[in-house]
């Protein structure tokens, strides 16, 4: 009996260039930047597309905010080797900082968000400093505990609005500004981090993940590299938190909620870790999904878990890696 086997063949351009692109025709340019262009254009047009469904317009913003936290998780875990389970630390700190600046110091929104992003990231880096020499699961546990710690402190001391949170934060002046105030930074951070990890300094970060001892033996202070990395990741998370606070005009304990730690990780798993775009795609699937599942009430978590499990079993490499392979290679059946 004749047996058939699937063979994967690289498309010609990929074979010829392997990273160094020698482009000679318009088709090849399109082949390379086409998907990126489509992706960017698609995201930029989202607010217009959802003009038809006003309820969903906010979801676009939330999607992008989660995507940013997911990028920061992917960056830390797959390019620096720090598994950070504390996305909620970043969003909470960013949200509360911007609320303080805006409500207590009356800074306008266009000052309070950048300030909260910077000072919040500094604050997050400082509190994570003692955990940086720890490896693997110990770092993960500490990052998981911080958001809990801060929300309990706020609750127990009844500071910063206590359980009610800080209300009356300035909103965005216009729905379109509200959309693009998250879409543009999200795209910026996405392409900036993608660029960064392939620069020489980015390779040093990736070296820390592969073998931190060898990086030490190369005369590089690994702890310092981790500090930079955590700062970059906190920038993204804190921006996201500050944005959300202004969007809902409220900074509450829910900014420290587990959702902000878990959904970005799930998005990275679904979208494909180590690609940075994967987490964005993952959030674009998971956030609307959990929105739809609101109708299902308590069953929401169950359905959510089933979907996640199926994804992990069926496409454990992540969507993005799967798509990349399909794009760069074609498959054919050959006789064995």
């Amino acid at each position: 009996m004749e047996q058939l086997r699937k063979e994967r063949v690289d498309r010609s351009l990929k074979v010829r260039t392997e990273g160094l692109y020698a482009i000679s025709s318009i088709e090849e340019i399109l082949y390379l930047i086409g998907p990126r262009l489509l992706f960017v254009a698609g995201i930029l047009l989202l607010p217009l597309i959802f003009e038809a469904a006003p309820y969903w317009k906010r979801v676009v913003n939330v999607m992008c905010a989660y995507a940013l936290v997911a990028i920061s998780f992917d960056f830390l875990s797959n390019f620096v080797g720090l598994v950070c389970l504390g996305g909620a630390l970043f969003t909470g700190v960013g949200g509360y900082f911007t609320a303080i600046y805006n409500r207590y110091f009356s800074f306008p929104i266009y000052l309070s968000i950048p300030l909260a992003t910077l000072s919040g990231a500094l604050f997050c880096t400082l509190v994570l400093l003692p955990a940086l020499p720890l490896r693997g699961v110990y770092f993960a546990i500490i990052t998981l505990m911080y958001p809990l710690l801060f929300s309990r402190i706020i609750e127990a001391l009844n500071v910063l609005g206590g359980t009610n949170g800080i209300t009356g934060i300035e909103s965005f002046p216009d729905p379109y500004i509200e959309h693009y105030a998250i879409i543009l930074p999200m795209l910026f951070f996405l392409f900036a981090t993608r660029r960064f990890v392939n620069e020489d300094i980015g390779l040093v970060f990736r070296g820390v993940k592969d073998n931190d001892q060898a990086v030490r033996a190369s005369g590089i202070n690994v702890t310092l590299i981790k500090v930079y990395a955590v700062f970059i990741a906190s920038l993204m998370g804190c921006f996201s938190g500050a944005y959300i606070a202004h969007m809902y005009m409220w900074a509450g304990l829910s900014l420290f909620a587990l959702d902000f730690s878990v959904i970005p990780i799930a998005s990275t798993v679904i979208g494909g870790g180590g690609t940075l775009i994967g987490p964005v795609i993952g959030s674009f699937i998971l956030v609307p999904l959990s929105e739809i599942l609101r109708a299902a009430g308590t069953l929401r978590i169950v359905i959510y878990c089933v979907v996640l499990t199926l994804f992990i079993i069926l496409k454990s490499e992540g969507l993005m890696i799967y798509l990349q392979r399909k794009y760069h290679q074609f498959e054919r059946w050959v006789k064995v």
Partner: protein
Amino acid sequence: MSGEAILSVSKLSKSFGGLRALVDVSFEVKRGEIFGIIGPNGSGKTTLINCITGFLKPDGGKVYFKEKDITGLKPHKISQMGIARTFQIMRPYYSLPAYKNLIIPLWSPRAKRLGGWRGGGRHGDRDTVAVDILEEIGFERDSRVPYKLASTLPTGYQKRLELARCIALRPEIIFCDEVFSGLSMSEVAGMIPLIEKMKMEGITLIMVEHRLRELFKVADRVMALNFGEKIAEGDPREVIEDRRVREAYLGREGV
């Protein structure tokens, strides 16, 4: 002798719980020589390297590099001063191509300060310098080997990559932790000219080896450890004739 000693170790000791891995080990290494450290498995050779290069804190004793006390400094501080090391358990940066493995040491302040390899220049493109270094160490430039993922390289190349990573730092001393182990006779024969070339370039080599025959081809002086204690030191031929050295080896597994 002390005037020309580049590295001087005195009464270094280290225990792991009750286990005494190093017991008052003292020795000096002269600039430009190849100094061998031999001893059966578990005799404390790797621990000695770890204590000198800062990866472990010694319990007692002192390490002087060019007459400066470097005992207990952080590993990156020590490698910045010009002491490089390989690891017995090789772990290249698996997710990077071979030549990109060298970007990391080339990025370090020391490599920046001293410029690239072969006058590659302060601002020499790191990728070019990296491939140059790999060529020096035996990666054929025209083959695709320097561009292959480090995880797909055969053992011989991974050992060379480990050395290349040291060389990229432009060190004064390289500690080699069993670079010959796991290699075939012909692969070792290919490594020996490399070792000699590094010596010619003025690098002091301290080679920890389990395989004596190959080490004795290149070493100027050797020291033998057993159960963390120095039992002999001197000319390779004298050391191998030493009664305690023979006992240490023959008593366990033979030379």
